[in-house]
């Protein structure tokens, strides 16, 4: 037990890194994903096509590859090439990748709302933007809560990928201690930390689902 308390310090520091990546990604990727989805369902063919291509690229290649590319290869790309420090490089990769997944969730949510809602809005005089903001998107939120819950839980666990950029997230911190002390105890504690984080997320989404349950479709 004393040992657990002793390793708690470095593991909590790792958790802080994990949570930072998680929260920053979430805060940036959700609005970006929504924006992409709105372009994707818009009547602008070319823009919509570009977004489809982007989503295909981001979902079709491993997140780890994207992260390595942004960190190691991006500096050598002409024109847009920049050298990013490890943390920003990881954030950029996570945001670009998760925005694509969120965009697909938003898109299917938007397209699941019937045409009657658009027509009713239209005959009442609402513009397309007003219809989206006031009528469609509020209904989409309720519909996408379950897949969003899934995706954010995946995100929490995916943050462990940043070890490839030598950043000390929760898992890498645990592994460091395992290698130093020749005991698997840190893995058990790290696992418990992940479980606590996903539990909090699950509860949060259940709470939201309950709040949205006041109305049925």
């Amino acid at each position, binding site marked *: 037990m004393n040992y657990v308390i002793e390793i708690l310090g470095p593991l909590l520091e790792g958790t802080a890194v994990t949570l930072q990546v998680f929260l920053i990604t979430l805060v940036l990727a959700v609005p970006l994903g929504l924006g992409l989805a709105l372009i994707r369902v818009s009547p602008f063919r070319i823009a919509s096509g570009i977004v489809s291509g982007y989503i295909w690229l981001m979902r079709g290649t491993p997140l780890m590859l994207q992260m390595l590319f942004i960190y190691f290869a991006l500096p050598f790309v002409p024109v847009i090439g920049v050298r990013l420090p490890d943390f920003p490089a990881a954030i950029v990769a996570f945001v670009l990748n998760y925005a694509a997944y969120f965009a697909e969730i938003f898109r299917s949510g938007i397209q699941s709302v019937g045409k009657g*809602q658009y027509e*009713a809005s239209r*005959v009442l*005089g609402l513009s397309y933007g007003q219809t989206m903001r006031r009528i469609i998107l509020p209904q989409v939120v309720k519909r996408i809560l379950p897949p969003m819950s899934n995706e954010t839980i995946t995100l929490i666990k995916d943050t462990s990928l940043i070890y490839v950029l030598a950043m000390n997230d929760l898992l890498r911190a645990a592994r460091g201690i395992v290698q130093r002390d020749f005991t698997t105890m840190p893995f058990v504690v790290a696992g418990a930390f992940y479980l606590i984080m996903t539990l909090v997320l699950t509860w949060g989404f259940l709470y939201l689902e309950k709040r949205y349950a*006041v109305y*049925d*479709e």
Partner: protein
Amino acid sequence: MPSMTSDLASHPSMLEARDLRKHFGGVEVLKGVSLEIARGDVVAVIGPSGSGKSTFLRCLNHLETLDAGHLVVEGETLASTDAAGICRYVPEPDLRRICRKMGMVFQQFNLFPHLTVLQNIIEAPITVKGLARDAVIPRAEELLRKVGLLDKRDSYPSRLSGGQKQRVAIARALAMEPDIMLFDEPTSALDPELTGEVLRSMRQLAEEHMTMLVVTHEMNFARDVSTHVVFMDQGQILEARPAAEMFANPSHPRTRSFLEHML
């Protein structure tokens, strides 16, 4: 087509549709439909399934885009077609303003499920007209009282019966203070015992001299409430006459056989 404004010549026409044409794919659904409606007219549109009644109604408020024809609402041109056959609508802001003069009630209600009954009604007046919430609520409550649903003010649509939903939909459309109300089979999705309450609200509206265009299979409504009846068949208006005349002696054989079938 006979004009329907014969005895109301002093009034400007409320809605004038001339030679409306619309096709879907290779099928011509409206083959030159013309109709003129005066203020206070209650026009029932009847006809067999697939004859283009819904399409006609939806072309009036731009839910469908016309291929050709002229549309004038309260003296303002909405769409016109030039000699070369090119159909043009007025610019978007005018289009939206003019279309707003027409309220619409759908067969499937299309209430907003995430909003309460009251919120459904005040949404457009606040968002579209920019009215203050406090100013809109008393009027919304008055409309709810009129359709007999004031006690459902804070319910969500999913808690209502079909008849109640449709009455909310009527109140919601009226909240935008339209000059013309379009109804597309407002009672067709309802159990028979629930159609009465919706028809009652519509009849009341007619008694208040609302101009109404109602696609319906309810022959009782067409006969007792409407001032004029339009019979559509295969994308054309075959007959458009005062209701009493139409039911007493339909002139077109197809109208006659349709009415015999329905009554």
